[in-house]
């Protein structure tokens, strides 16, 4: 574990230096423990692939005290038993009109569109963390056969529910926002809903599977 000051009111805690499920498991355990038993000075926790950014109340504690408390938490976290991860299924319509970049992604890899769909739906993904916007989950790892870099120029507006890929990651846009990921489909489900429990459809640590649906099924689900 490496602890590094990020600002006068936050530290970055690195539990590993690479993207791996083992490192992420440690991130998750520490997050759960901090959520279960939050120190009085804790303002925010932002988990990511192999780190947690911890914001603290600087009127109560300094960096040294935060670090020593976090080290104790990290030790306790080792024996923390995690609940089994949930599996979430996301229905996605990959029809061309809802998938503006699908053909180009296929062409870039000498594949047909239906191969990209097959590869995208053929494996479960791990939800590493939520960031960018409420409910936006970074999912990995995408098959190397369809991994594609971000667009050079991001779109000013991406429709809510758009399924995108960027490098070896995939995600669903919960809201209509700007976005630079390549869009290969769309889900009719609401990824984030205030008042729902939980508000986010995909939580950190979940297993996610995409299922291909028809345009008709998309419309039916969208109207529910």
């Amino acid at each position, binding site marked *: 574990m490496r602890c590094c000051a*990020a600002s006068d*009111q936050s530290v970055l805690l690195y539990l590993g230096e690479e993207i791996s499920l083992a490192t992420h498991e440690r991130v998750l355990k520490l997050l759960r423990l901090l959520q279960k038993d939050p120190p009085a000075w804790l*303002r925010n926790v*932002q988990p990511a692939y192999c780190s*947690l950014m911890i914001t603290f109340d600087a009127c109560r504690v300094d960096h040294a005290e935060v670090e020593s408390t976090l080290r104790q938490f990290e030790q306790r976290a080792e024996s923390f038993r995690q609940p089994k991860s949930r599996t979430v299924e996301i229905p996605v319509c990959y029809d061309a009109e809802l998938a503006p970049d699908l053909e180009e992604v296929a062409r870039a890899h000498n594949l047909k569109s239906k191969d990209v769909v097959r590869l995208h739906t053929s494996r479960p993904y791990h939800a590493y963390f*939520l960031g960018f*916007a409420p409910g936006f989950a970074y999912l990995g790892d995408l098959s190397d056969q369809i991994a594609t870099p971000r667009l050079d120029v991001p779109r000013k507006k991406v429709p809510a529910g758009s399924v995108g890929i960027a490098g070896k990651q995939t995600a669903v846009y919960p809201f209509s926002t700007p976005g630079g990921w390549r869009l290969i489909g769309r889900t009719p489900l609401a990824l984030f809903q205030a008042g729902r429990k939980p508000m986010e459809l995909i939580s950190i640590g979940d297993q996610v599977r995409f299922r291909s649906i028809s345009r008709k099924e998309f419309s039916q689900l969208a109207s529910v």
Partner: protein
Amino acid sequence: MNSLIVKSPGLLTTIQDLGRPGYGAIGVSPAGAADPVALRLANLLVGNEPGAAALEITLLGGTFVFPEGGTVAITGANLSPTLDGQPLEMWASNPLPPGAELTLGPTKNYARAYLAVAGAFQVKLFLGSASTHLLSGTGGFEGRALRKGDILRFSAPPHKIQKRRVSQSLLTSLKPRKVLRVTDGPQAGQFSPEAREAFAHQTFRVTEESDRLGLRLEAPPILSPESANIITEGVSLGAIQITPAGQAIILGVDQQTTGGYPKIANVIGIDLHRVGQLRPRIDIRFERTSFAVARALWIERERLLNSTEHLFT
């Protein structure tokens, strides 16, 4: 119930409070007022809780009508507020007669003014906060900036609000500054000595591409470290990240919660409200300080803001 009718909204007017920290794990940005000190003082001037919902008015004001009257305070950037054509005192509480029309003009100096009403605006809270987060369309008034014809409600307290002014000494200590104090960012050590030197000494100009998400700065490029692609990690408010092209960006209150650019420095807590007051075409510099100094200054400021007897005259 009292009301405020938006006759013209100005350039960008949103409902803000002190934001919603604590939801990083579900991707929710803390949001909140870009200048939280001005928001707190506006609320305290009219007898509200310091973190009550108020209007954040950006660069160019609008016109607001109060059919039933009320008591208001305007703080932050000077947008030359007038009440029925007469100049309205800023950084003070002001009674408004029924039918009063409040107009704000273009900014004379900084970026954002705050308007609080006694009793505070009533909007539906999202995750415990009234703040508008424009990117996701959540919080505030229907998750968006105010438009012509919108009506905001507030229940004015039955008692008379005592006339209050922010003390001159406090105003002086809060004055916007063009030299922002910073501490080292988490990747500071990965930048070359030349890059760090350039960062510490050159002047940066705030560009037009600046908003609540962040301020993009213009200056000769700062060379990114060789291993510029760091693994995406959480980012802190006021972090100064350097893009692969060498551009510096100061992350603002509506920031994305994670990012993959290296951070060379971070604006210290007590200067964050000043970041919220920077507008395009202003030149700034950075001055490096220690975590211990930054923390001592923060504690002193918080003590001052929490002890109302020294704030007002």
